Structure formats: structure tokens, C-alpha cells
């Protein structure tokens, strides 16, 4: 009896430690990112670090072009993916007959599982030449190419979360809409989609979080020129994102150099941005729960 109580205690404390290990993981991320990234602030003047030029070999560590590059590519991708994904979610959930749903849902899952290198490869061999020919850009490796590839990455997240949101709208809402004489389309557009609004916002935020953190595909298709994307035709020119910078340059920096610290500082900025995006997405979910009724 005594023995079994002891082993019970041992197992319980082991499992407790495992549970707390996730907190440890977050702490690890914070500690190591800060430890390796913060020294850059003492090595580089703040105006330099927040400046408009990223030329590490000449001591310019301005992260502004990289942040704006990431934002440009991501926002464009979500702008393309949101209408497409929302329409697909509505179609799959509300309009499509059963057999179409059976085909479409696995396809969405397949799309979600495609590795980013494969998408990047596809972007290099097919989307980039297409962009060059149809949009007449000097090179196919532009911001818009990256956005199109990120649309691929963002769509599955967007569709499945938006579909869950639509799914959560009670059946009585639909019945009420139809009973009032609204057509199916009016019911969808005026009743169901507004009722699922917060879930759709969550879907867009989660997709954005995924898109801004994407590395390989973006690195392979955006041309990687670290310049300010402020011209009106910035979408048709090469850009460089934060993620691509870290992946491309981390291999050749010496440990402890300013450049090394600067790359970790980019990691901190990226971490903060995605954290904020995910928190907003989680807040949207909670807001829906608090309003109650809907679920």
C-alpha cells in the first residue's frame, strides 16, 4: 500500500513537471531571444537599428525595410486570400451538396500539408515566370509572387477556421432567415456571415500569423532585395522579409558579432508581432464566448 502510494506520487509529480515544461519552453524562447538579441541595442545606435538601410557589412542594421517587406507581402496575401477563403468556406459549409463537401474538405487538408519548400519550388518554376510575363516586371521574383504563394499557405487555415465559425451559427438563425422570406443568399450574407463575424476575424488573424512567419517559400520567390517598399509599384519589385533575412544570413555570421545579435533582434520583433496577432485572434474567440448566445 505504502509502495503504491509512493509510485502514484512519483508519476503525478512527473506529469506535473511535464505540464509545466510548456511554460519553461516559452520562458526559454524569451530568455534566449532576449539574451542573444538585446545586446544589439548597446552595439548599434537606436536610429540606426530603426533606420531605412540594411547593409550589415557596412554597419547599417536598419530593420525598417525588412519589417515593411514582411507586412507588404503578408497583407497583400491576406487581401487576396480573405475573399477567396471566405467564399470557399461559405460554399463548402452552406451551399455545396454533400458529395462536393466530401471531395473539397480532404483537398483543403492536402493543401494545408504541403511543405513550404515545395510551394516555393512551385512559385519559382510556375508563378514567377507567369508574373513576369503577365505583369511585365523585370524579374518574376517580386513581392506579388511572394503574396500569391503565401495565399496558398494562408487559404487552408482561413477556410477551416472560417468554416468552424459558420458551423457554430445555430440552425435557428438560418431557419429564421428563411422563414422571413429571405432567399438563401440573403440569409447567408445578412444573417449567418455577420453572426460568424468574430470567428472570421480570428480566421484572418491566424492566417496572417502563419503567413508572416513563413520563411522558405517567401525566401525562394521574393527576390530578397533589402530595400524600402515605398514606391507605388512596390508589389512588382523584389522585397525581403524578416524571416528570409534570418534564414539567409544566419549561416554566415560569427557568434557574438553585431550582425548575429541583430538577426536575433529581428527574431524578437517577429516573435512580438506574431504574439500580438495570435493574442488578437484569441481575444476575438473570447469575445464571441462572452457574448454567449451564439454558440
Amino acid at each position, binding site marked *: 500500500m505504502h509502495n503504491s502510494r509512493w509510485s502514484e506520487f512519483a508519476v503525478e509529480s512527473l506529469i506535473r513537471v511535464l505540464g509545466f515544461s510548456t511554460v519553461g519552453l516559452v520562458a*526559454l524562447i524569451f530568455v534566449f531571444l532576449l539574451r542573444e538579441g538585446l545586446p544589439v541595442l548597446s552595439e548599434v545606435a537606436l536610429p540606426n537599428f530603426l533606420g531605412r538601410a540594411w547593409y550589415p557589412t557596412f554597419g547599417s542594421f536598419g530593420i525598417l525595410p525588412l519589417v515593411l517587406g514582411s507586412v507588404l507581402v503578408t497583407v497583400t496575401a491576406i487581401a487576396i486570400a480573405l475573399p477567396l477563403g471566405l467564399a*470557399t468556406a461559405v460554399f463548402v459549409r452552406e451551399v455545396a451538396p454533400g458529395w462536393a463537401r466530401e471531395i473539397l474538405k480532404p483537398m483543403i487538408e492536402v493543401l494545408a500539408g504541403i511543405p*513550404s519548400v515545395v510551394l516555393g519550388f512551385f512559385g519559382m518554376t510556375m508563378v514567377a515566370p507567369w508574373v513576369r510575363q503577365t505583369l511585365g516586371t523585370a524579374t518574376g521574383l517580386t513581392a506579388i509572387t511572394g503574396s500569391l504563394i503565401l495565399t496558398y499557405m494562408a487559404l487552408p487555415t482561413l477556410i477551416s477556421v472560417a468554416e468552424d465559425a459558420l458551423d457554430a451559427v445555430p440552425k435557428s438563425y438560418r431557419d429564421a432567415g428563411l422563414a422571413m422570406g429571405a432567399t438563401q443568399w440573403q440569409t447567408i450574407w445578412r444573417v449567418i456571415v455577420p453572426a460568424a463575424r468574430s470567428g472570421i476575424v480570428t480566421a484572418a488573424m491566424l492566417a496572417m500569423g502563419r503567413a508572416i512567419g513563413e520563411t522558405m517559400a517567401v525566401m525562394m520567390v521574393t527576390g530578397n532585395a533589402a530595400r524600402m517598399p515605398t514606391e507605388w509599384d512596390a508589389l512588382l519589385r523584389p522585397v525581403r522579409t524578416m524571416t528570409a533575412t534570418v534564414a539567409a544570413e544566419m549561416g554566415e555570421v560569427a557568434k557574438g558579432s553585431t550582425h548575429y545579435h541583430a538577426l536575433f533582434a529581428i527574431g524578437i520583433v517577429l516573435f512580438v508581432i506574431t504574439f500580438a*496577432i495570435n493574442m488578437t485572434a484569441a481575444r476575438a474567440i473570447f469575445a464571441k464566448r462572452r457574448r454567449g448566445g451564439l454558440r
Partner: protein
Amino acid sequence: MNRCPSAVSSINLPEGDDLRDFIAGRHARGRLWSTALLASTILAVIALTALLVNIVDGASGFVAIENAVDPQSLSVDGIALQDLESETLIQIIGSHVSAAVVRRLESEQPLAKRSRQDLYELVIERVVKPEVKQGWTLSESIFGREEIQVVVAEQYPKAQLVFRSWLSLDFLTSPQSSVPERAGVRTALLGTLWTLLITIALAFPLGVGAAVYLEEYAGDTFLNRIIRTNINNLAGVPSIIYGLLGLAIFVRSCAPITSGAAFGRGDPTTANGRTILSAGLTLALLVLPLIIINAQEAVRSVPRSLRYGSLSLGATQWQTIRSHVLPQALPGILTGTILAMSRAIGETAPLVVVGATTYIVIDPSGPFSKFTTLPMQIYQWTARPQADFRRIAAAASLLLLVLLLAMNATAIVLRNHHSQKGCL
């Protein structure tokens, strides 16, 4: 569902053209929009199909191969080259390859001791020297066959036109090479398997343990709420951040352990800690939140009555969990684990940061070896200027997709099996 526009329009409406037009207009708008929805869905399907077709298209097709020496001219006494005896093959090598190269080959392994197959491959490599002059994609090969034949006849009169699938058994079993025709993915596949093994070994027990804690032991305290929010946030952290973490912890801080020096297994080439072990640990951190979330759902779906039944018979909480909750939740946990593994297989960015070696020809032999993985290899090949590397990149992509599809299919079958059983 709930589709009854026909029922609505069959109601006898009151007279009045305005009303009639209004109703008709509403339905027309509805039809228009549902067509738009359908179009958008079709667009999404087309986009996905284009991607898959593009990959398959690049992975096979015609190639024009030009041999430095015609293999038929090498046949002796009417016996074709591939049927010759070892001695004759050695003679051919001796007469066509410079003495210095023969000496080098002899010093690697005496020619007389090599197998006939090895010698034959040596003759092909050193004497026949097949070279791919130009390659075409599958669609070009099917729809433009005549044109390709004309081009080959004009530009490479000595070349032979052969249909070649780049994804072949040779491709799977050959190591990396600087010549695209002979390059394969064996080292990359082995690297992927080793990395995955370490990832599972760490992430599975840790993830399931954490899930059991959160679902069975944790009360609704402030700390536990923080943990729950944390896990969802962790799943959203970009993979490259995990790469930075892996670089800082496993490669830089724990180099003596991850390079194997602490266990006397060190190798000067891996002394910097950029080993399979570092990569596996990094990927384990990456998939941990996914495994926890999936395992939590699986544990949560086990009926309460099962726990109460066991507890009321006097079992301790751990006994209940071990003998009733975990076995019942196992299919769900495994499904989640397989999905997490398929994420780990395709992940490249963290490994780029952790420092996968891009060009290795020696098979990885354990956790302390240098390594490359399948997606790293694809990335490396796409960066090469030669068009042939694009084709083997397509072949490797196809292989990766097939691998992932197989894993996802297993997961779905497991899930369906589980949900059928779940009705008890």
C-alpha cells in the same frame, strides 16, 4: 441544406409587377452570388491542381542523352556491354581511362576485387559518360513529341532521346552527387528518418504527459490558465523562431553534448554541434504544442463515466488514467502525433538556421552525424542554375508529397476507425 427557393417561388404571389420583379431580382442576385461562390471554390481547386500538376510535370519527361563513347562500340565479340565478364570490363577501363585515374581507383579498392555490377557502373561513369544535353517536361513530351525529335536531330545529332522518370529506384538509393543524372536522395532520406526518430522520442512522451496533466490533474488555477493560453500561442510561433532557439541552445550552448564530444563520440567535422541531435531536438520543440493540443482533445473525448467507473472501484487516479483513459484516447493521440510528424518532415526553415549541411555523400550513422533532410535537399537543388537540378527537385518534391499523403491518409484512417469505435 435548407434549400427551398422553389417552394418560395411556387407560392401564389399577389398581383403587381413591382413585387414580381422584386422577387425575381432577389433570386437572380442569389443565383449570381452562389455562382460567384462556386467560381471561387473552383479557383481554389484549380490553384491546388496547378501546383500538383506542375510538380508531376517536372518529375518525368524526355531527355536527350549524349554518350562520349557509344556503348555498342564497346561490345566485344558480339556480346553487349552489360553482359560482359569482369575481366573484359577491367580491360575496357584500362584501355579508355588514363593510367593515373586507374591507379587512384585501384587504391580505393582493387578493380579485380570489385563486383561485376560495380565494374559495369564504373565503365558507364568513366568511359561511356552519358550526359543529359537537354530535358523536357512531361507535358512537353506528350504534346510536342515531333518537335522534340526535330530539335534533338538538329542540335544533338549524336544524342539519344530517352523517356526518363526522374523519380526512380536509383533516385531513392543513390547518394547526393554533383551530377544531376546520378544524384539521389538516400542521404537526405536517412537524415530525415534519423531526425524524425529523435523528434518523436522526445516530443511524444513530453507532449502526452503535458496533455494528461492539463486535462486530468490541473485545476482551474491562474497558473494553469496561463499554460493553456501559452500552448495555443506556442503553436502560432513562426518556425524560424524555433530555429533561432535551437541555434542558441542546442548548437551554441550545448555544443559539447550535441556534437557527441561529451560521450567520446566527437568528430572534428561535427564539433560545432550542427548534428542530427540538434535538429531533432529543435523539431521536437516545434511540434510539441501540436502534439499537446491534439492529445488534449483525445483525452477530453474519453467519456467521464469511464473515469468514474474506475475510480469507484477503488483505482487510484494514475491507475485510472493508465488503464482506461490512455488506451481509450490512444488512437486520437496517435493521429495527432502523425499529423505533427508530417509537419516536422516538411519543415525547412529551422534546419537552415540550425545548420543542416547541404552537400553530404556519406550516410548519417547516428545522432552525432552531419545531416541533410529531404526538404533541405529540395531547397538546395532549386538554388542550382542547371535545369536538370530543377527536375530532380521536382522528383524529390513528389517523393515528399507522397510521403506526407501516406502519413495523412494513415492519420485519417485511424481517426475514422476511432470515431466508429467511439459510439460505445
